[in-house]
């Protein structure tokens, strides 16, 4: 149970210990950290995978994901309530002594408020961690981030690419998808936790307008100090925060006295809420300087922001302090540099300090993990003190999966507010069932279903259950199987929704991202599911978001995923083997802020769409011999997209693309075989779908949104 989250392989291999035939971090196909000027596929597709069909890898097995045992938390002593403020209140050395007393009194008052807030937060944290463990944190959450660059010179005005490299590190580290997680010493491996938190630059600003999620502010202040939080206010030469309830504010500038970064815990004043990082310790490119050039300062500070304490318990070098986490060893003081294992203190032999933890003080290259207990504490924080972030964190999803299994025939299957699936269908003469009713298909579903059809009488519905396993039901032409409200269990512990394609009659291929962030595959061969039972075929990778799969012909599957570095990756089945290898991927470049969407409008023609960091839509295509416009390049199609794009190909020379804009309206553009209409960068607005908008909780009683009728 303890290793159920991280290790679906069942064979003791942690993700970092994946087979790596090249012996280099990128060789398997998914570099976690983008390096400047990523060199394209040349190094990425050469991983010599197993010969043959590669379908004999370790399967993905079901487990008890999410039940990170917190039974050991009983020893949590008080003390949170007495915590002094950290990033928000410590008075600095006043230059004029006479001004000190009022300042001190004000801070003292603030501190009392802060101490009260901290006490309340610790109480709610314990409640959240002790109760409802099974349903505590059902899915990955995505936190909108704004990065405030405050610069005095050009060097401090760090590039967008450097900022993106930092986001990529956060997204790897908070999913236990970092390439160095395998360096965790063996006695600690079972402690590794996936926080299931992802970060993205905000696409909508506080005023509702589109944004890059980056602000840039010139300043005359040479160095900023935490004493007065000067970087957090325009009045003191910094940048004002965006509303702290909706955004993680992340300031980057020159900090005083070599300080790498500092954070404000939940419960502090909103006007100073967030994280500050010095510009030489941000991201992995540009001004980032060793040994703090792997982006781990932000990982550490965001840990504080999500209510994690230092792993040694913040009592100097004593053994009496606690980080309020049950599964971290007692530890005296901070570790520095790159300690060698074990580093023993506080009677914690033989394994010693957990110095590989993000909340210690070691170099970037020496910290690799959060523990499950720390994950539980962060999740409790997101359920309580920082729950307002989640209201804005939901990514608008496609309105409802829709499929046409014959001329004039449309089936819509969607998850209702009751978490069950519901269907409506049209035979060309009207919607059934009549009235506003939906057919109830049962289930307790975590995500939205995916639907495939391989014949006029056939529907296959795949959906992720609350246990994160995949479930299947199908319409055989006369009835639902295994029953109207029943499902077959296909196993797995999935971090994504299942993606299903059918490349021939009586043939289904299902792809999911597992809890290990790798891609997994299961297929119906006409007689049975393969691999059999709850196992899944492992296809490697470190994937973020949803995979996209398409069957361009009977013997061809193409799968696209976004890697932890936000680039697009591709692998394909050529009828006999996975290419470039069983667990390898081709690198297709890009900085993707959405999951990919792919359509095949011919046996050798693929069109892939993603959104970029500027929220615009980007397109690349395969013409049978090459990727266009280049292997790693994209055609910019404009727009301001707030969710994943949707694409449909009605014919070999026709593409219809739908995106949701910041106005919640559906926007449409199309390729007529010659050009993009209405223009390469413009869209026609189809208005706001009926109901409260695409981001709203789906309800089976809502009318079918515009997307369905337009796209079909």
């Amino acid at each position: 149970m303890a290793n159920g989250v991280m290790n679906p392989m069942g064979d003791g291999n942690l993700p970092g210990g994946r087979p790596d035939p090249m012996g280099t971090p990128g060789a398997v196909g998914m570099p976690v950290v983008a390096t400047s000027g990523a060199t394209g596929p040349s190094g990425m597709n050469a991983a010599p995978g197993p010969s043959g069909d590669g379908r004999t890898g370790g399967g993905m097995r079901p487990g008890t994901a999410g039940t990170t045992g917190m039974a050991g938390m009983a020893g949590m002593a008080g003390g949170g309530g007495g915590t002094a403020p950290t990033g928000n209140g410590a008075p600095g050395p006043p230059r004029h002594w006479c001004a000190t007393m009022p300042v001190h009194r004000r801070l003292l008052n603030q501190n009392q408020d802060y101490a009260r807030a901290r006490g309340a937060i610790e109480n709610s944290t314990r409640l959240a961690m002790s109760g409802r463990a099974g349903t505590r944190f059902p899915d990955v959450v995505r936190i909108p981030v704004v990065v405030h660059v405050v610069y005095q010179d050009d060097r401090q005005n760090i590039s967008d690419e450097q900022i993106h490299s930092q986001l990529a590190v956060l997204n790897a580290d908070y999913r236990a998808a970092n390439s160095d997680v395998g360096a965790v010493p063996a006695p600690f491996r079972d402690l590794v936790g996936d926080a299931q938190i992802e970060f993205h630059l905000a696409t909508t600003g506080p005023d509702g307008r589109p944004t890059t999620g980056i602000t840039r502010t010139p300043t005359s202040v040479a160095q900023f100090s935490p004493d007065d939080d000067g970087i957090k206010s325009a009045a003191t030469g910094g940048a004002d925060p965006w509303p702290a309830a909706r955004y993680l504010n992340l300031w980057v500038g020159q900090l005083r006295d070599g300080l790498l970064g500092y954070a404000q815990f939940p419960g502090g004043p909103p006007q100073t809420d967030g994280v500050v990082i010095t510009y030489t310790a941000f991201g992995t490119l540009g001004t980032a300087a060793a040994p703090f050039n792997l982006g781990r300062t932000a990982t550490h500070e965001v840990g504080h922001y999500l209510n994690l304490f230092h792993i040694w318990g913040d009592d100097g070098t004593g053994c009496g302090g606690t980080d309020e986490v049950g599964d971290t060893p007692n530890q005296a003081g901070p570790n520095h540099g790159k300690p060698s294992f074990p580093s023993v203190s506080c009677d914690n032999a033989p394994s010693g300090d957990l110095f590989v933890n993000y909340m210690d003080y070691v170099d970037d290259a020496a910290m690799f993990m959060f523990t499950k207990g720390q994950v539980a504490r962060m999740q409790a924080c997101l359920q309580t003190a920082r729950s307002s972030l989640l209201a804005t964190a939901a990514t608008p999803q496609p309105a409802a999966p829709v499929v046409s299994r014959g001329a004039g025939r449309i089936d819509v299957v969607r998850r209702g507010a009751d978490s069950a699936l519901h269907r409506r269908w049209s035979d060309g003469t009207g919607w059934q069932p009549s009235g506003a009713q939906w057919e109830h298909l049962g289930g307790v579903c975590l995500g939205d279903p995916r639907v495939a059809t391989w014949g006029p009488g056939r529907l296959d519905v795949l959906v992720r259950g609350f246990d994160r396993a995949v479930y299947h039901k199908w319409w055989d032409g006369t009835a639902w199987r295994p029953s109207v409200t029943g499902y077959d269990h296909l196993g797995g512990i999935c971090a994504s929704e299942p993606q299903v394609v059918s490349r021939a009659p009586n043939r289904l291929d299902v792809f999911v991202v597992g809890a290990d962030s790798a891609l997994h595959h299961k297929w119906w061969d006409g007689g049975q599911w393969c691999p059999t039972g709850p196992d899944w075929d492992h296809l490697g990778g470190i994937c973020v978001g949803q995979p996209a799969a398409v069957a361009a012909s009977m013997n061809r599957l193409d799968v696209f995923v976004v890697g932890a570095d936000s680039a697009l990756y591709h692998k394909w089945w050529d009828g006999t083997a996975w290419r470039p290898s069983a667990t390898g991927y081709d690198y297709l470049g890009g900085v993707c802020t959405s999951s990919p969407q792919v359509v095949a409008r011919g046996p050798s023609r693929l069109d892939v769409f993603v959104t970029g960091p500027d929220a615009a839509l980007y397109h690349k295509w395969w013409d049978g011999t090459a990727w266009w416009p280049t292997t790693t390049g994209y055609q910019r199609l404009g727009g301001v997209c707030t969710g994943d794009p949707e694409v449909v190909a009605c014919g070999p020379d026709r593409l219809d693309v739908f995106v949701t804009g910041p106005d919640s309206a559906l926007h449409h553009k199309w390729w007529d075989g010659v050009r993009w209409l209405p223009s390469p960068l413009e869209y026609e607005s189809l208005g706001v779908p009926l109901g409260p908008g695409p981001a709203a909780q789906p309800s089976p009683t809502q009318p079918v949104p515009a997307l369905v009728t337009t796209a079909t």
Partner: protein
Amino acid sequence: MPDTPDRLSRRWLHSFEEDHEGVQVYRPSGHPFPPARGRDGIEFRPDGTFIDLPIGRGDANEARPGRWHGEPQGPVHVHTEAAGRRVMDVVRLEPDRLEVRWREEAG
């Protein structure tokens, strides 16, 4: 040459990278310190206010005020509620460098 108390009056941050043989080395705030995730410090004010500056839970320094007094050339006595009474023996004091040994107050 000014007495020790006069020359101490400022904020000093722990240049822990330079510690040696039980001696703790401090540098004035503003010194070009190498980057660090946190750095504790001490501050002496002319009116007798002492501020202990341990690394806080969010990496910035906490401020724990107390009192201090020192003989013209002798040890420096500090007191905070959190850490109690301590004695700081000054080993070396230059404008940009303070070297001390800490010990508990006798008795």
